[in-house]
């Protein structure tokens, strides 16, 4: 069991809002969590929960009309949210790297792989020669399990299969040996058979290189296999976080319970699949009180009036719910 290490990333009350014509969309509304060096943390939530925006906020890649309006993103002592774009460029692809969801669209179709890899190296190290950068690229391709890397470097993205392309993206992320990799649904667009491979290989890679990993996904099952800790997000807030084993064994927040229940493997044959009733509320029109109330089996009057605060529990466990069993509070 991993000890609580010094966190390399500490996000505190992050608020990223989108100022649209239709209103203010609070995509990320007070998110706080930490990632320790070499730790693998999962960020789970359905579409529209704000999980991807959280990742983009760390990278400073939130597109207008979105803006980080409050909170701090502390990375090894520096507050990233206060940096200018130029200063952030120094971190991106260097100390913090990102992997995107759709490998088809992530790589530029008209540039060779080696161009796209060498430029990532040379952007952060002006003194390195092209040949040295090429060698490093080739070695990193080998690291992610791509055979005949020399030939592959000269190829174009469309000559690779989906799984291979994602490995290339992973390789690019690893080129400058970052401290943290943010992976935004990296296996969602892949074939199921490839998914398992990529997941386990990423886990192995991160453990070996002591790289911290933030794995953003909607699939709780994936996170269960790879992460040390997990944060569950709903409507822009983290509703539960803690050690993976604890959460899987004993989900406390009604949403987490619903997520666990709706995983097909958790259901028994022949019985109807469990679902969470209702739909995610429109982010422009969140109800007063808890955002989950209209789908929650335990909702009472208190839930419709106020938003629950974080309840701190043992083992770095946090839950945001009025109905958490009283006996387990710290």
């Amino acid at each position, binding site marked *: 069991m991993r000890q609580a290490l010094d966190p390399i990333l500490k996000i505190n009350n992050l608020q990223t809002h989108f100022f649209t*014509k239709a209103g203010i969309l609070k995509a990320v509304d007070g998110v706080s969590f930490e990632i320790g060096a070499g730790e693998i943390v999962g960020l789970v939530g359905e579409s529209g929960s704000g999980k991807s925006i959280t990742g983009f906020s760390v990278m400073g890649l939130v597109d207008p009309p979105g803006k980080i309006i409050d909170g701090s993103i502390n990375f090894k002592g520096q507050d990233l949210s206060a940096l200018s774009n130029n200063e952030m460029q120094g971190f991106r692809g260097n100390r913090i790297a990102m992997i995107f969801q759709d490998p088809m669209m992530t790589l530029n179709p008209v540039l060779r792989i080696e161009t796209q890899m060498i430029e990532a190296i040379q952007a952060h190290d002006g003194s390195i020669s092209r040949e040295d950068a090429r060698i490093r690229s080739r070695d990193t391709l080998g690291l992610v399990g791509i055979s005949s890397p020399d030939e592959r470097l000269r190829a174009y993205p469309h000559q690779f299969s989906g799984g291979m392309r994602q490995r290339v993206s992973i390789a690019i992320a690893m080129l400058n040996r970052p401290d943290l990799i943010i992976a935004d649904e990296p296996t969602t667009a892949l074939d199921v058979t490839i998914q398992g491979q990529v997941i386990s290989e990423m886990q192995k890679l991160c453990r070996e290189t002591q790289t911290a990993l933030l794995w953003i996904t909607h699939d709780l099952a994936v996170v269960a296999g790879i992460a040390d800790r997990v944060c569950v997000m709903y409507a822009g807030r983290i509703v539960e976080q803690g050690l993976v084993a604890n959460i899987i064994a004993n989900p406390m927040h009604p949403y987490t319970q619903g997520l666990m229940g709706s995983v097909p493997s958790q259901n028994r044959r022949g019985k109807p699949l469990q679902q969470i009733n*209702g*739909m995610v*509320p*429109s982010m422009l*029109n*969140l*109800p007063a009180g808890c955002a989950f*109330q*209209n*789908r929650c089996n335990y909702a009472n009057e208190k839930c*419709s009036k106020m938003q629950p605060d974080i309840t701190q529990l043992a083992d770095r466990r946090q839950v945001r719910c009025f109905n958490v069993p009283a006996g387990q509070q710290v």
Partner: protein
Amino acid sequence: MGASANKQSFDLPASGLRKFWLDFSESPTAVIALFVFLTILFIAIFAPWVSPSNPYDLTSVDIMNSRLPPGSEDFSGNFYILGTDGAGRDMLSAIFYGLRVSLGVGALSGLVALILGASIGLSAAYFGGRFETIMMRIVDIQLSFPSILMALIILAAFGKGVEKTIIALILVQWAYYARAARASALVEKNKEYVEAAHCLALGNRRIILSHIAPNCMAPLIVVGTLQTAHAISLEATLSFLGLGLPITEPSLGLLIGNGFEYMYSGDFWISIFPGVALLITIVSINLVGDQLRDMFNPRLQK
């Protein structure tokens, strides 16, 4: 409880014309352009009544008044706000009459080209098969040649004159309409109401005309406005080159062409003012067409 959480505002769709105007007036430039164009249209239609004089009435034109600069008066007390041309005709009146011809030719050729091209395009999309392939190949080949070249070929073959110019313009334009009509008809063809019409055993012609065609009107109107501007421009170019309309029916292009030689001696107004009128006409139509296109473009819907 859930209902209030999911509250969204639904506007009842405003009546067709009102909604059209609301969307259209989102661009103030387009609205101004529309008014300008309507003014020009008015002038063109009512030219004989709106002009100070009839420049083609030989009895009212005196060669002694030729090449008077703008703002001058002649011996009979006539005021020439835009000056006179080489034969003594009032420029303002000449421009008004010229607008009439330019717009008339442009609109007529556009309309016929629309009907012709749309019919072919709709039929091609509806019937498919070899007919469609052949027609569309012809359209593609024709569209790969610039319009001025097509017009030159046709005029070189058939000679000059009003009817021949109009025919040339029609032959140049129909392809654009055909292509637009076919594209939108293909989309409509696969929609359910066409299947429903089939099930009712309605005749082909009825299905095409009453059902599919109305839904294709929007893109055709956009093409129509832009093409009309193009046709007016093309006709002006041809007339300027001396290959289009004859002197008896002077369009703006011909006026510009006739005035060209006077420019070198400094009498710029004979050429420039008709040019400005032409420009305003074309720009206003283009602006309106642009706004229409943005309005009907599904990718830009909010």
